[in-house]
Structure formats: C-alpha cells, structure tokens
C-alpha cells in the first residue's frame, strides 16, 4: 500500500463555474467517487470536464458548490492550508511534465518534496532518505530498471508512467488525471489506463480521469460521467452506457 493515510473519498457537489468573461463552464455538476473506484469523465471540447477536474484539484475556485477530498473541504481553504490539503491529490497531466535533464529517480523524488520542506531541499537537495520509497513507486509503474536514466531519454508512454510514479511518491489519497493519454500512441494509452485501473483496484484509490476516448472509458471505468454544457447528462456504470448515449453526448455540441 503506497498511501500511508489510506485512500479518501472525492466529493463534488453542485459545482457552478462562471468565468469572468461571463461564460458558464459548469452548471451544477455533482460527483462522488469512493475509494477503489475509477470514474471517467467524457464530453466534447468545452463541455466543462477539464474545468470540473481543475475545480476538484483546487486549481480553480468554483463560483458555487463544494469540493471535499479525503475529508478536507478544499473550497473553504486558502493559501498554505489549501496547498497542504492538495497534497492528498495526485495529479496526472496530459504531458508528463518531467524535469528533462534530471534522472528518472530524481523526478520521482520530487514528488516527496511536500513532506520535506527544509533549507536543504529548498536549495535544490533531493530528499534521498526517500530513495527506497521512490524506487517502490517506480516499481509500481514497472520502470524501476530505468531509475538512473535521464528523463529526456524516455518515450512518451514511459515518461507518463514516471509522472504517475511521481504522483504516487506524494503518497496521495486520491488521484486525478487530465487527459493522461491524449498525446500517446494506442499501446502506451492502454498501458496508462491499466495503471490507473490498478491504482483504483489494487491500491484502493478513488480515481477521476478526463478522457476523449469513449472506447477506453467503457473498458476501464467503473462509472462514466457524461458532461455537456457544464451539466451532467448521465452518470452510470460503464457496462450500462449505450453507444447511443455516447453519440448523443458528442452531438450535444450542435444542440
């Protein structure tokens, strides 16, 4: 078990997000993800799915609504306390965002910095006391053999797996992924989805993943949330989502 404090629940209730430009990106979206569950959010561009993820991650403050992660109400926290609460969330982006000139292991160790706020780590020293744990995280994504390699020598899929290992090194209690396979080839995409699946099934994490591929969603998710114009169109078990529902979701753009 990688998470020390144990997985926590992700809850988002009645999220409304109106941008300063007046655009309504979210209009009452609600989602609760239990430990061990993988929920995929689908929707066309501009449906509000990335906005929703960023609200849950505490990167955006919703105009109305509540976000709670592992018991901490992110929407009521600010500054340092928000930053501390966010540490419970492991975030995976579309691009791996590794520090390219550093080794794979150093990149994973960067995930532990939040727990090691000292003068030395502020000046650039890595918390090597966590090296064994970082290797354990790399092992979880199957890349422990590449620990000493420089990050810029990795393939896109490998880099994304290292990014997942870095998120694990943070000892998260929940995982968010924002289009994690959008820039990967199909084989690497499957590999990443299998990893996210096992984070939920084996590590017991709640996982929310924004995707553009309905086929992957149906295969890997427990439940699928369909968003259109910031509203929930459906939230159902993956096996009961019909092709018709998905077609209608993506046609919602014209409506």
């Amino acid at each position, binding site marked *: 078990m990688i998470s020390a404090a144990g997985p926590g629940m992700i809850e988002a209730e009645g999220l409304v997000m109106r941008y300063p430009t007046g655009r309504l990106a979210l209009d009452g979206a609600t989602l609760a993800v239990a430990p061990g569950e993988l929920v995929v959010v689908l929707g066309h561009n501009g449906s509000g799915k990335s906005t929703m993820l960023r609200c849950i*991650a505490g*990167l955006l403050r919703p105009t109305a609504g509540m976000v709670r992660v592992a018991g901490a109400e992110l929407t009521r926290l600010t500054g340092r306390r928000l*930053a*501390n609460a*966010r*540490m419970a*969330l*492991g*975030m995976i*982006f579309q*691009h791996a*965002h*590794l*520090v*390219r*000139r*550093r080794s794979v292991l150093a990149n994973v160790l*960067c*995930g532990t*910095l*939040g*727990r090691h*706020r000292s003068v030395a*780590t*502020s*000046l*650039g020293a*890595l918390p090597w006391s966590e090296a064994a744990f970082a290797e354990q995280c790399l092992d979880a994504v199957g890349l422990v053999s590449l620990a000493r390699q420089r990050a810029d020598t990795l393939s896109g899929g490998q880099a994304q797996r290292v*990014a997942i290992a*870095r*998120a694990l090194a*943070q000892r998260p209690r929940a995982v968010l992924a924002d289009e994690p396979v959008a820039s990967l080839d199909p084989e690497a995409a499957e590999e990443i989805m299998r990893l996210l699946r096992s984070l939920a099934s084996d590590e017991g994490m709640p996982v929310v993943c924004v995707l553009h591929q309905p086929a992957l969603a149906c295969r890997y998710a427990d439940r699928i949330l369909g968003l259109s114009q910031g509203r929930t169109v459906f939230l159902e078990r993956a096996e009961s989502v019909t092709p018709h529902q998905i077609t209608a979701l993506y046609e919602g753009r014209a409506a």
Partner: protein
Amino acid sequence: MNRIEQIVLPSEQRATPRTPQASRALPFLGVFLFLVLLGQAAIVVQARPQDLISGAHGMADILRRSFPPDFSKIGDTFEPALETLDIALFGTTAAVIMALPLAVLAARNTTPARPFYFAARAIIALCRAVPDLVWALLFVTAVGLGPFPGALAVSVHSVGMLGRLFSEVVEDMDMGAVEALTMSGASRLQVFSHAVVPSVLPSLLGIALYRLDENIRASLVLGFVGAGGLGFQLLTAMNLFQYRTVSLLLLVTFAIVMVAERLSAALRAQIS
C-alpha cells in the same frame, strides 16, 4: 540555438503562393536592387582598388620589418595577456551576477509587475545598444587608464547581451514541471530550485561561456582606448614602430583567441 531553429526551419513552409509571372520577376528585381545598393556603398566608402596596388610596397615593407617576431620579448607579454583574460573573466562574472535578476524581471512569465518589466527591458536595451568600446571610452574618462575601466566596459555591455538572452531562456522555459511540482505540495522555493533552476541552468551556463569567449576578444580591442591588456601594448608598439613586437603580440592574441574559442566550445558541448 532554439531561436535559430525557429528562424531557419519554418521558412520553407512560409512560402506563400504567388502567380508564376511574379515568382519569375521577383529574383531579378531583388538582384537589381542589391546591385544598386552595392554601387552606392562602393561610392560612399570611396573604394579605390588602385590605392591597394600602390600601397602594396608599403605593406610589404611593414611585413618585412615585422619578421621575425621578437620572441625575446615573450616574457613581457605574459602580464598584459593575463590582464586581458582577467578583464574578460571579471567583466563576464560581474555581468552574469547583474543580468540574472534583470532577466527574471524582464521575462513576461516571471516579472512581478509591468513597471519592473519595462524598466528591466530599458536597462538591458541601453547596456546593449552602446558598444563596449564606447563604454570603455566613458569609463577611462571616469576612472582613468588601466584594466579596471576595461572590465567595467565589458561587464556593462555584457549585461545588455546576457540580460536579453537570459530572459528569452526564462520565457521559453517549460512551465509544466513548475505546475506539476506546485500541485504536489512543493513550496515556492522548492519549485524554483527543483523545476526552474535545472531546466534553465544549462542554457544559462552555455550562454555565459559563449559570452566569456566573446569578451576575451572584446577586451583585446579595449586596450586601444587605454583600457589595459594586450591591446594597449599593441597600440604602444605600433606607435613606436616596433613591428617585430607587434607581430609577436598578434601571435599571442591569435593563440589566446583560438584556445579560448576551443575551450568554450568544448565546455558548452559538455553541458548540453
């Protein structure tokens, strides 16, 4: 290096569709315009090839009188050579220290506020626009003859060159790692030292080394206006018609420039 790629690479794709007649006429027009420009340049610089021919005798005389180089004075070149190298080393180091904070202020993604951005850009532009030789003239007037005004001139001009290149590196930096580490709970200082520094440091070092190499060449010339080093020796020897000393000093200069260039290139290759 990225800049050059950006300029060079897309040009093939940039070609806009033109009518066949226009595309045939354009190169001729371009060549014609260039010849006109070249013609007026030849008139303005008063180019007279016959002067070269009539002056050949004088040049041969100088060459004869400067051969062989006076190697007995090689010991005397050591100190001015060291002075030249030190002007460049001191000037470049001081410039790097001043250019770093200026570059952070002058980069759109890191500047704290618009007024700082414009102020930093203005300082950098001023330092760069005035050539180092002119800075040297000003500093010689201000602090007197010697290597110190040379080092000041090198550093002020370099602040302009380095400030601009450094700020471009900071602006081109991949912000992804910064966002990822911020999300993971790292403090601002940790994000700076673990994401910003490792991604920009190699480029900054490479630029600084290249600048050092350029400054060695610059400090050779600065001596001509009284700012110490080999240039000053060269000027003195010329004025005293000691052409064999001149040729020796030129050889020493040549050796220093070659070695510095190779060394700087090798170090930069190591970094990237």
